[in-house]
């Protein structure tokens, strides 16, 4: 039984091509698996990126809110400081007014005390004088007339000299 060599050659070409197709198909499938894994990784990264983006957006909005609160707090603090400063100024004015009034009262009080002391001194002096006067013996003019014993002393009266 003889086989046509041409048929053998064509069969050999078919086998070689078939082996080649199996080889390239396997390599293609392997590449496809690698690309599928890379695509899955890209999708996972994309998902993570989306989550990170949402977290950043939430963080940004929270930061904005905190900043707004901080500004509001600063504004309130400045307002409170201004009110406090205004009250301090008012208190200073009131204190100064009270101090001046106190000084004035103190001056008046001192004057009054001095006056009172003068009055008291006068009264005391008057009382003392009255006491003294009361303690004094009666004036000679009030006494009954008598022979002045001082006739002898008239010689020595300087007024007479």
């Amino acid at each position, binding site marked *: 039984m003889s086989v046509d060599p041409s048929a053998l*050659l*064509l069969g050999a070409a078919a086998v070689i*091509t078939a082996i080649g*197709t199996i080889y390239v198909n396997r390599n293609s499938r392997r590449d496809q698996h690698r690309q599928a894994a890379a695509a899955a990784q890209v999708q996972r990264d994309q998902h993570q990126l989306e989550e990170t983006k949402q977290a950043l957006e939430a963080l940004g909005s929270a930061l904005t809110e905190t900043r707004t609160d901080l500004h509001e707090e600063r504004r309130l603090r400045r307002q409170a400081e201004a009110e406090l400063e205004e009250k301090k100024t008012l208190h200073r004015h009131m204190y100064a007014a009270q101090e001046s009034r106190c000084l004035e009262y103190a001056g008046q009080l001192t004057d009054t005390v001095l006056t009172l002391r003068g009055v008291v001194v006068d009264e005391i002096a008057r009382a003392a004088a009255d006491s003294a006067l009361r303690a004094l013996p009666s004036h000679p003019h009030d006494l009954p007339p008598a022979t002045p014993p001082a006739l002898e002393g008239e010689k020595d009266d300087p007024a007479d000299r």
Partner: protein
Amino acid sequence: MAVGVLPSVPEEQMTWRARAYLVIAAARHILVGAACIVLVADFDGDSFQVIRAVLPVWVWGVAFLVGGAHLTYAAIRGSEGHARVALSLSAISTSVWAAGFLLAYQEGGAVSPIGVIFATALTAKDLVICRQPMRSPFEPIVREYDEPKGR
């Protein structure tokens, strides 16, 4: 044939590039097969002497028609496995014809190696297409970026 020894890949939509190539290859096979069946007398040239010696022309025609139908089915359905098998069979049949042209040219029947060159080039193109991914796993991502859904 080749599907059984290959690892499985999750099915996705086939790219339009792969479908276009499958349709073109199917048209080539169907036209050649139809010519082999309808215009049998036109294959009397010496270039086909080896091919005719191996199998009758109408048998080649039927084989090409079946291959073309398989390629068409793979292109319409978008099945990667069928496409790989059909392209592999196309490469095998085309390489057999290339070998036939080469033998005819060496025996002195064919006056030019054009048939060898064309058939070999077609075989190489089928192999290159088999080597490249029939579908790109990145296409859904690219489509999502091109036409975002639900945003």
